């Protein structure tokens, strides 16, 4: 019997993987992939709560759809920023982008 707890544990593990990728990667595109994993972990939670905690309302799935849309926006703007930084500095490695660092 699969319960709400199973989905929450899986989503916590996916979130941990995404957090590790976002914190430890040097490449900005790889950091963005970690952020996508974290957003997906949150989405699993939303849809699972929709089914198990409030099946009468559709708010969980609606929130998941909004999060997917905003993730697409974030990816588009983030990748545009990475492209602009690459044109200017010829690198996508975040520790080489130190123009404004003290």
């Amino acid at each position, binding site marked *: 019997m699969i319960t709400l707890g199973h989905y929450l544990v899986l989503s916590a593990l996916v979130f941990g993987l995404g957090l590790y*990728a976002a914190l*430890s990667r040097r490449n900005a*595109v790889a950091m963005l*992939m970690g952020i996508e994993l974290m957003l997906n972990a949150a989405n699993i939670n939303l849809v699972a709560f929709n*089914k198990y905690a409030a099946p009468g309302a559709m708010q969980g799935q609606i929130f998941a759809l909004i999060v997917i*849309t905003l993730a697409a926006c974030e990816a588009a703007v983030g*990748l545009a920023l990475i492209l602009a930084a690459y044109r200017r500095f010829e690198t996508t490695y975040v520790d080489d982008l130190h123009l404004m660092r003290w």
Partner: protein
Amino acid sequence: MTGEAIAFYVLAAITLSAGTVVATSPNLMHSAVALIPALLGITGLYVLLNAEFVAGIQVLIYAGGITVLILFVIMLTEGGTGLHIRQRNEQAAVAAAVAAATAAVLVAVASRTPWAHGAGTLPSYTPGAIGQSFLGPNLPLFEGTSVVLLVALVGALLIARKEIRE
């Protein structure tokens, strides 16, 4: 084990193994391509959770759109695998400790809380219910999201265009 349990564990294994490759592979292309099975595993979980519409959108936007965009940007910038250069920063050990601690806290909270079971049942045709909700009580949310999409589109175009130097 029931069929649901088998499906859940298979999909969880796919998602976690592909997610591990995304987080740790030294080859950028492998990371980006491993994002596809990770997202498709999560799509399978949505189907298990009776969220067919969310599953379809996940395939269209994540597996089809965002992954291709990420692959494009990798090819446009580094133009390769990134194998010749260090991919992890000096704080990788701290990052692993922080991520493990966060995941451990979340797992502990999720497994110890007695989650209440809500009343009601899921509608038999969820896309219809989602459409009714988006054009009914959630209309401001829907319109706000479309404004955000437009702003992000214009912003991405403006940022990514070539600078004209005179």
